[in-house]
């Protein structure tokens, strides 16, 4: 059987034009997808049943037992942490927030180690952006800054930017100028019309120089800034100012390098400045398929996009204090529930190490590095493969992930609901 217009849940692009061939409840072929999509659908090896750590290894336990024990762990904790959420649907994420509210937990999502700094910058200066179709239909200048979409978002360029045919850009490849800014020559740099190689940690200075040139203060710029020649900077500003529509996309090369959220703030202010000359937008390239959904759900329910602490009864937000990494590093947290993510692989070593010291439960379809740190692992459906639900694309467009096959697993939203019911004496959220 062929399923059309399937949404790939892997990255923030949420490409929704895949064709999946299924045979006897198994996916046998993926078409239109990138290598990451193919791997997402084809190499979907699940943990068969809930497991609990024993002194010598692991034992299988029932869902009922796993859910009950998870609830008891959370109930008994003084400073529980609920972390992850970015690879599941909105339905599970909102129950997560209800649990956090009920037990006074800290709830955080993977933005904390990803585009958290972008959010902080947006909270200072706002976000001039748009949906990806605006870029596809209008942009004649594309800037990729500190990111490598060829490897991380393989179809971003063909669906939305460089190679996409747009209404006002019918000959995409001829009509679009692509500028790539990075510290190393990536595969993406290979397709750039203009590659700007910056010395490590020089992003802030280069952004400031560009802003100065846009404002007509070219004379204050020295011959070289962080390894970039003044001539090239002037040329780039000229390209931007004469663009009909320019779009900047940035990745962790900008958010997680020296300067962090100040880099993003500077990039947004450059965008703002350019809007006084032409149309310009800027957007983060979000990683996990539904990380933006977790920001959205957290925001409409609590007021904050990540790092929300309910310990005081109210929703409290102070990144650096209420962020998952910091709570773990300080050894403050005494139980953790990880959902749809892998902090074991992505957190700093000391933060991950603390997860191993406390009772940690992970709800995730797959065995990952966090399993090794956990006491219980509860497998579940994978949103977009065997569970339907909402995901928010990197530009905020909400798309319904489809249930393509049934593998007999329990939906993580259902597992979380049962945990909630346990914690709330049998009453739902």
């Amino acid at each position, binding site marked *: 059987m062929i399923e059309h217009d399937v949404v790939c849940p892997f990255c923030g692009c949420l490409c929704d034009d895949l064709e999946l061939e299924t045979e006897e409840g198994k996916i046998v072929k993926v078409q239109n997808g990138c290598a990451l999509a193919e791997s997402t659908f084809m190499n979907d090896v699940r943990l068969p049943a809930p497991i609990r750590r024993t002194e010598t290894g692991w034992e299988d336990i029932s869902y009922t037992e796993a859910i009950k024990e998870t609830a008891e762990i959370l109930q008994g904790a003084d400073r529980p942490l609920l972390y992850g959420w970015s690879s599941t649907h909105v339905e599970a994420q909102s129950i997560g927030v209800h649990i956090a509210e009920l037990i006074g937990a800290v709830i955080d999502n993977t933005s904390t180690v990803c585009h958290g700094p972008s959010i902080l910058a947006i909270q200072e200066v706002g976000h*001039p952006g748009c949906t990806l179709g605006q870029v596809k239909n209008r942009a004649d200048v594309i800037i990729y800054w500190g990111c490598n979409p060829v490897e991380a978002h393989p179809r971003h360029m063909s669906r939305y930017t460089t190679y996409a045919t747009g*209404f006002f850009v019918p000959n995409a490849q001829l009509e679009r100028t692509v500028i790539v800014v990075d510290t190393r020559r990536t595969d993406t740099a290979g397709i750039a019309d203009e590659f700007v190689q910056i010395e490590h940690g020089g992003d802030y200075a280069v952004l400031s120089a560009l802003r100065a040139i846009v404002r007509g203060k070219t004379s204050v710029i020295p011959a070289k800034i962080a390894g970039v020649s003044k001539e090239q900077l002037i040329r780039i500003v000229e390209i931007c100012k004469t663009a009909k529509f320019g779009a900047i996309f940035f990745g962790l090369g900008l958010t997680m390098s020296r300067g962090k959220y100040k880099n993003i703030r500077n990039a947004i202010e450059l965008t703002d400045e350019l809007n006084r000359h032409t149309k310009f*937008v800027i957007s983060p390239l979000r990683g996990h398929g539904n990380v933006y959904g977790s920001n959205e759900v957290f925001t*409409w*329910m609590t007021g904050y996009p990540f790092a929300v602490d309910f310990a005081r009864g109210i929703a409290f937000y102070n990144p650096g204090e209420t962020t998952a990494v910091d709570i773990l590093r300080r050894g403050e947290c005494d139980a953790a529930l990880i959902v749809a993510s892998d902090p074991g692989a992505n957190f700093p070593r000391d933060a991950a190490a603390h997860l191993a010291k406390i009772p940690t439960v992970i709800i995730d379809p797959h065995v990952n590095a966090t399993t090794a740190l956990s006491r219980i692992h509860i497998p579940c459906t994978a949103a977009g493969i065997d569970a339907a639900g909402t995901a928010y694309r990197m530009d905020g467009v909400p*798309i319904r992930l489809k249930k393509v096959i049934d593998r007999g697993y329990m939906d993580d939203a259902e597992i979380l609901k049962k945990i909630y019911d346990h914690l709330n004496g049998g009453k739902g959220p």
Partner: protein
Amino acid sequence: MTELWVKNACVIDPIRGINGEIMDIAIRDGRIVESVSDRADVIDAQRCLTLPGGIDSHTHVSGTKVNFGRYMSPEDMRAGRTKRKGKMHVTSGYYVPTTFGNSYRYSAMGYTTLLEGAMAPLEARHTHEEFTATPHQDMMANTLFDGNWAVMDAVREKDIRKTAAVVAWTLKAARGYGIKLTNPGGTEAWGFGEDLTGIHEMVPHFAVTPAEIITTMIRANELLKLPHSVHLHCNNLGKPGNYQTTLETFDIVPDLNPARQTLYATHVQFHAYGGGTWKNISSKAEEITRSVNIKPQIVMDMGQIMFGRTMTMTADGPMEFNLHCLHHNKWSNHDVELETGSGIIPVTYSKKSAVNCIMWAIGLELALLTKNPYQCLLETDNPNGAPFVKYPEIIGLLMSKRYRDEECATLATGVEQRTSLFALERELDWHDIAVMTRAGQAKALGIVNQGKGHLGIGAEADIAIYPIRTDSVDPAREYRKVVEGFQKTRYTIKRGRVVSREGEIIVDGANATFWVDAKVPEDLKMENDPEFIKRFEQFYTVRMSNYPVQDVYLPRGRRIETEVFT
């Protein structure tokens, strides 16, 4: 079967012509009935003011841009936080509260139905997700068509039937309620950083004018027999001298519907400015109301501003950028492919600013100079003019000349000469307020026959009982009592259940979402139109099959079907 008996209620129900009668109200299974059994629960209203549940016909409470307003404003979240309590979830925020914050505070004020003012169809799913988390009000969503490519193509071809067909398909796909035009044509121009300056200026690349979009959409709206009229945010919002654009727009509106207005002009305060610069801006409320008073086909809402800090958010992207260039605070923009734009910036309206004072005066003038209260509804374009929790203060100002005089005395100098407010003696009465906050909205939105906005037999039992005794309070003098009274109901009853008592929510919500399924002849169905499909698949970034909102997003969806036109 659940029954409720509200006795000794001092009812004002303008749609049924009831003005301050002491009556009993019988409710069974969520609807108003003739009588109930003696097993019914009883509420003694003690002769307090009892009105149909409040209806907000233009507010921004759910969806992409509202949530982005929250996202970028942790400073506001700290301003209004409450703990989990009983049935109430944690809330945060003052001018852009969380969904539960919105729902609880509206409920405490007696509001039971809300129309989200602007939903981009591409992002409709988001609006509906937030609707389910705004549990104590029935919801509906105005759907944005101001920069819709398929609409502009049909308008250029002067094809009203095709325009109607695109509207019908899109409303159904988005599960939307009515047509919203925000700066028609201007949001498309903003796609390349431009704006339009008048209703006869061409939209770049599309060869249509705002005037053509407005008039064609009005005719399409009536052809489809939609319950609500076209809902318009005029061009040139917030620009000195823009009243001329507003009057020109009003002049091209035909009178096509005997049951309601043909155009709903929203937040008209922002569109009633004289002068040519910020220095010589003045009120043109007299000119605007003179036009509205002789045009029964137009209903407007005030778009009142109140002093203090708030957040502006609108699909009018270019306007927000201009405002940003004045304020130099944070600015967000979010254009939506093939459909519309949007922008968000925080603002503080200050009594030290003569411009802000004139804006404040204009909103009140509009309400006081409009003869028929059904033609000027009480709104702040929440949160643009002020958060909705300010409505009681606005009621107080409209009912009391003394209150207005006291406020006017605190304004910046030089305001008195540029507005007529200081000279207006009119004081609105309880009936006027009931019209401007529920009956007028129900009529304008076309939901009277859905059982909204009145308390007749068969109506939905949405009722607000305020701690106000109209026989013993003189609103002209005791305006503080009026303001306090409207801030917190004694009881808010939603579909026959008491949801809020003295400001506290006591049950889980079970709201409904109203949407319109407009029927078109078989040959006009856009899902079968090869050209429409081709353009959709070429230029949108989602597949056409993934675009429509699935029914699962409306757990209590209420479909309003229209008759097919010929």
